[in-house]
């Protein structure tokens, strides 16, 4: 049970390094009906606001770097700080990554090592959502309902040297205050439901810009979480190769350059939560793929006519 959870969260945490973001930032003492912030990713940092109000929050996420990036939002348990997260969680993941990369240990051994090295409180970390992978120069939007608290944003992809982006600096604190926001969730024209062994997509997948809702109906019994990365692929792309690339524990997994073109998605959320993302589809073949559970059937292979 724990091993599975480790695998899930290993990718998550591996992404702990943050980027610094600079964004438009609402004051924290007023309510907002258009709660939009901007987070910029670059190699390897985020520009983001430090403090935002609670509630439905649209994050416009732009990749201004030269490599693929995503945004994952993690909420450490009460009493644990950004510093605790960076030092207590990221170091074990980085050590395991080095053991995989440099010492050639097996993924099973890596998970065992993680289980031994991670602090107990790690299992109480909540992953609140985030964007799917987007390439350099791309922008995507996600909308999440954020509760007050202290969060960590990060990207755990790997650079060409095989170093984790979060370890390189792509990790940052985000504080959500109790100041209210009256913003509402967007209207989605495509609904994605994530459940064990299945990804349901409802709606008319046609060329053009779409607003997707993503609902996590259930977590896997053995602790895997689900997310959605959307990738445009060639007609002859082997899905297993993309699944393999999505595995952080593969030596070239999540490493620049990506073998396919990602266009966004929604990162891991708690069971029962719903988030939103936008993506523009062109005619062609797309994979909607869960990073950790895609190989267990939580994926869709669709062709847009």
């Amino acid at each position, binding site marked *: 049970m724990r091993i599975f959870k480790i695998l899930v969260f290993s990718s998550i945490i591996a992404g702990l*390094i*943050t*980027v*610094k*973001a*600079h964004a438009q930032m609402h004051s924290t003492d007023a309510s907002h009906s258009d709660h939009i912030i901007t987070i910029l990713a*670059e*190699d*390897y*940092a*985020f*520009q983001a606001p*430090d403090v935002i109000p609670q509630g439905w929050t649209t994050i416009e996420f732009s990749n*201004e*770097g*030269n490599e693929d990036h995503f945004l994952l939002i993690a909420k450490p348990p009460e009493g644990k700080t*950004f*510093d605790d997260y*960076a*030092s207590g969680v*990221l*170091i074990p993941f*980085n050590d395991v990554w080095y053991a995989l990369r440099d010492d050639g240990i097996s993924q099973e051994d890596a998970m065992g090592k993680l289980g031994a090295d991670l602090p107990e409180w790690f299992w109480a970390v909540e992953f609140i959502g985030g964007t799917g992978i987007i390439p350099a120069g791309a922008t995507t939007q996600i909308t999440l309902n954020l509760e007050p608290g202290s969060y960590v944003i990060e990207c755990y992809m790997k650079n060409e040297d095989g170093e984790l982006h979060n*370890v*390189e*600096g792509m*990790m*940052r*604190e985000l504080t959500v205050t109790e100041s209210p926001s009256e913003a509402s969730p967007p209207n989605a024209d495509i609904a994605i439901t994530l459940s064990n062994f299945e990804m349901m997509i409802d709606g008319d997948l046609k060329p053009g810009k779409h607003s997707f809702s993503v609902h996590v109906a259930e977590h896997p019994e053995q602790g895997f979480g689900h997310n959605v990365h959307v990738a445009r692929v060639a007609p002859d792309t082997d899905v297993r190769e993309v699944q393999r690339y999505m595995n952080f524990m593969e030596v070239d997994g999540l490493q620049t350059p990506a073998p396919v073109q990602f266009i966004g998605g929604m990162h891991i959320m708690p069971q029962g939560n719903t988030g939103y993302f936008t993506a523009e589809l062109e005619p062609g073949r797309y994979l909607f793929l869960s990073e950790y559970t895609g190989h267990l059937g939580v994926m869709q292979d669709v062709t847009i006519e």
Partner: protein
Amino acid sequence: MLKKLFFVTALILCCFAISIAQTSVAGHPVLENLSSEPGIVEVELTASQERLSLVPGVETDVYAYNGRVPGPLLEVSEGDSVIVHFKNNLPEKTTVHWHGLHLPFVMDGSPFHPVGPGETFTYAFRIHEGTAGTYWYHPHPHHRTAWQVGMGLYGGIIIRDHNDPLPDTLTERLLILSDNRFDDDGQIEFAETGSRQKRVDDMNGREGDVLFVNDEIMPELTIRSGEVQRWRIVNASGARIYRLALEGHTFTHVGSDGGLFEHPVEVDEIILSNGERAELLVYGTGEPGSSITLRDLPYDRYMPMFRPSNWEKTNDLLTLLYTDEKPVQEPFEVPETLRKIPELTLDDATETRIMRMTNGKINSRTMDMNRVDETAELGATEIWDIRNLVGMDHPFHLHGFQFQVIDRNGEPVSQRKWKDTVNVPGFESARFIVRYDNYPGLWMFHCHILDHEDQGMMGVLEVK
């Protein structure tokens, strides 16, 4: 006859004593001025491999200027013309960068002008009025600066003001701070490529566990009770940032990179990042016969995941011994106004340049000697907005032009001062204003953690 002989001997001894005294300033040997012409300072400087005793009882292979670590002091005055005949006797190319000085591009000793092994170069430049202060020199070859400075190439510079508001009766000390790491054989240790330590050094910058003040470990300096001393401090460490405090004493902070402040400031401690300098007045408020310690207090400049386990350790740097003499009865009072610093006004600024610093990169780019990153007009006044996007400190250094920090994280700074290096802590920002006077050329800007600079956290500003 005997009387005459005695007189001549005394005269010779006196001259010899004066000669000895003149070769040491602020506790440092001085580069000998070969010129007898007023206003000309002409010196010889050679970089070479040497074997010196840095740590007592052990001989270490080093790089040295004129056979010393640190190199001898360059002492000049405002208005002087300086000629440095430099010889590179190292087995690799190098440069001599005159950190903080306002001089022509070709004389800056930047990576654009390497001096090959066995080659010579004559640096010639003029010392501008208003630039009196504490500076330093060090090599700046692309990708090799951390190595060469770590091997021992650095030295101090004092520029004097003929009308210095502080009297020359104050005992003056130049404290060049550095740190280093040694292997079991006493040789300077650099991490092996691919090692865990190399990864840490690449991220934090290479820190040493042996701390030097000039050429000594924990030297003993003296002060008389009631005396006031003028300390000039240079951070020549490749990566260590110092948080300096003198137990039971305050400092009067009177100057920084580009010389004296407008007004002195009373402080309990100062933070000195890589490449920065500070001028302090130390008041001997202790009792005769007592002693105190200059300490480097813990300073967290690190990414949380790379923070050394001993980062909270306080390091002792030197002992200040009070002499047994009775206290000085007429204490010195520092002037309320030290000098007037011309204001660079925001209204004159024609451009704001945003520098986003991430680990190893500026604006998502690494250094390319064939690329110009920023272009500006000679004489223009501009604002630089330095944003540190990651969780560790990055000290930002601009070559060629002194600037004035105008705010930090949007908060105005307390007083105007000339700077060439500004430390920007993790996730913070600082803005400065600068005017590109006199000298066109390709000017480097970079993080002064030398390992970061070598990794390419550096760019080129073309002024034309």
